[in-house]
């Protein structure tokens, strides 16, 4: 009996191991042509990210596509994104479970990681051979196309972008009798204004520093610094200009010109008039207007300059999977997902900045709040892409850890950035 039981258990164990190995080994099964259960339709899979509203906008475009392709079923998976490493992880999970996505909406932060691992198809030939896509390519900001290009090859067609400008509370400036800032203002002028606007009783801070990777980037780019080397092959976190930028930011924290950057929700604080200035993109505008802010209350200006005029841009682009088995259908779907109708609907959602100048400078789409809303597009055109090498997760976490150590008073800026540099180098070797 014991022997028999052991045999049964051994068989169960072996069986489950074989099953799990088979599951692990199913990578690449997406290359096999797949047909849906109902009526033998071909299946395309779309991996999207964002809100339910953004998923619906994509679904509308998908419905238009399937309206013209009755033999195709499109399955959209939309995931919320906390970090781009998580997004890549979900992509891998779909692939290993035999549901390789054919068309993917990818953030700039994950692009190099995906290209490095041969997950994306270069689009240059596809775009050149298609009138609609060629025309669209000509309308994109060049900086955006550069962001989604690796080694001279284009891997994504942008569907939206984000950038950073400096928002300021006009009434607080009026009250302090300070002139509104103008494009081209300097770090010194910013600091002087922020000091004057900060109230000693702690009820108002001159500026709200957000310690997020994207939001911090304009402080590097306007000081001619960048977290990686030019070819993205190595981190460059402890360059002299990076250290200078962090010392400047730490001065804001030490002088209590900004609330604690680690725990504060600066966007809520700006809406509740506890901050005179805050850096953000378009994504905050709807929330602030819902909170009652109007053109009389706030406006925006380009980021203050130390060594050069700049900002940061990120964004998202539709790409085609390198392992798609339905390339032609995927191209047709991609065209629908970057159509004028889709881009307009996506921009109307109010979160993202449209990726083309004609849409991003259209007040019907962008609205008229604040007065200098067009400054957002200008920021896109002068901005640097968010530093997103293949080791994005490591550099993002390493830099933020280092900054937290600075802002919590544990380390000096140079020492913290030296440590962060060493940690990232160690992680990627």
């Amino acid at each position, binding site marked *: 009996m014991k022997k028999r039981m052991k045999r049964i258990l051994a068989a*169960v164990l072996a069986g*489950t191991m074989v099953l799990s190995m088979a599951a692990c080994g199913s990578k690449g099964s997406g290359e096999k042509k797949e047909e849906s259960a109902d009526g033998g339709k071909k299946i395309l899979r779309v991996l999207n990210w964002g809100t339910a509203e953004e998923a619906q906008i994509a679904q509308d475009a998908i419905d238009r596509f399937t309206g013209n392709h009755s033999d195709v079923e499109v399955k959209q998976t939309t995931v919320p994104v906390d970090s781009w490493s*998580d997004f890549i992880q979900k992509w891998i999970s779909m692939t290993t479970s035999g549901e390789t996505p054919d068309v993917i909406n990818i953030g700039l932060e994950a692009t190099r990681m995906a290209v490095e691992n041969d997950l994306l198809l270069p689009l240059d030939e596809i775009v050149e051979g298609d009138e609609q896509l060629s025309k669209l390519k000509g309308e994109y900001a060049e900086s955006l196309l550069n962001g989604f290009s690796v080694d001279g090859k284009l891997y994504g067609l942008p569907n939206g972008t984000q950038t950073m400008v400096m928002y300021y509370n006009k009434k607080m400036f009026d009250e302090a009798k300070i002139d509104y800032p103008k494009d081209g203002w300097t770090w010194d002028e910013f600091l002087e204004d922020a000091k004057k606007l900060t109230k000693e009783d702690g009820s108002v801070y001159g500026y709200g520093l957000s310690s997020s990777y994207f939001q911090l980037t304009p402080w590097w780019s306007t000081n001619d610094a960048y977290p990686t080397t030019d070819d993205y092959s190595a981190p460059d976190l402890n360059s002299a200009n990076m250290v200078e930028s962090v010392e400047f930011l730490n001065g804001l924290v030490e002088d209590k010109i900004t609330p*604690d950057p*680690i*725990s504060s929700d600066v966007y809520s604080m700006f809406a509740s008039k506890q901050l005179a200035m805050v850096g953000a993109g378009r994504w905050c505008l709807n929330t602030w207007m819902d909170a009652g802010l109007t053109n009389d209350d706030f406006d925006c200006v380009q980021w203050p300059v130390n060594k050069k005029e700049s900002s940061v841009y990120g964004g998202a682009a539709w790409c085609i999977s390198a392992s798609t088995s339905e390339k032609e259908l995927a191209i047709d779907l991609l065209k629908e997902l970057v159509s004028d109708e889709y881009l307009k609907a996506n921009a109307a959602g109010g979160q993202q900045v449209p990726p083309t100048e004609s849409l991003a400078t259209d007040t019907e789409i962008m609205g008229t709040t604040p007065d200098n809303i067009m400054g957002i597009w200008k920021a896109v055109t002068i901005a640097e892409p968010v530093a997103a090498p293949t080791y994005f997760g490591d550099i993002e976490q390493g830099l933020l850890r280092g900054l937290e*150590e600075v802002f919590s008073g544990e380390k000096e800026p140079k020492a913290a950035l030296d440590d962060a540099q060493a940690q990232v180098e160690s992680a990627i070797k």
Partner: protein
Amino acid sequence: MCGAAGAVKRGHIMKKKRTNRREKGAAYLFTLPSFFGFVVFVLIPVIWVVIISFQKYNVFTGASEFVGLKNYLSILNDPRSISALKNTLWYTLLCGIGNTGLGLVLAVLVDDILPAKVNVFFRSIYFFPSLVALTFVAIIWQEFFQTDAGVINYYLGLFGVSKVGWLNSQNMSKVAVLILDIWKNVGMSMLLILAGLQNVDKGLLEAAQIDGANAFQRFRRIIVPVASPQIFFVLIMNITGALRIYESILVLTGGGPGDSSRSLVMLVAEKGFTSFDYGAASALSILLLGLIGIVTLIQFAGSKWWVHYE
């Protein structure tokens, strides 16, 4: 006659054996589903993790290369691992003891000291946080703990206490996590220990009281020994839970500032899902598994001094 009696006896024995065999078979059948779950969801992944921990594994291509102990050595030589280990032991000690100790105190308080309806009310209040998803309440706790606009610092300020950097101070971030973790988990500890307190003979307590034992003596000499199996179970659960602490830190501090509140499990997740270094993540997981095993063995070894099974 003897032969017939022997045959009857043999028949009884055979029947008993057959019954035993059937019962054993049924028992195996009943354990099969959970055994199957254990094999598929625990045993095989653990074996897989052990294998990966000796490899450099590319999650994108599935390619792997045997690297011997390299992943283990890199983990042991990484100051961040040592820092995360220290933090984990800190959480283990304070969250484990805090959740169990406070759970015991609350269980005694809501056992039968107060009127029944009041007891039910407080039991519900204390247990409520265990029912709430931490990710939802994390936003509220983050608001509470904000340095400059937080509720806790506001009230502390009314008593003249200067602002505490709950989330931005290297010294206080773990304390903030501890508070959140105990708030979240102490209710479950209370409930489990409360079940053990039902075994305490009320007559024994009354007799002790008549004999002059004060409340602490009754607690120390009667309640704790009788409920010790449940207390031990809760302690094991809380200690192993604290060794694997992740969610409470993730939602509150993200492991920061710096690495000041990062636990070993957070480091595993970072290495696996941010750096995609599955080899190092697996090696760290195996080391953590060993640590949990050692701590649990120590607890079992120590339990014979104070846990009384009837």
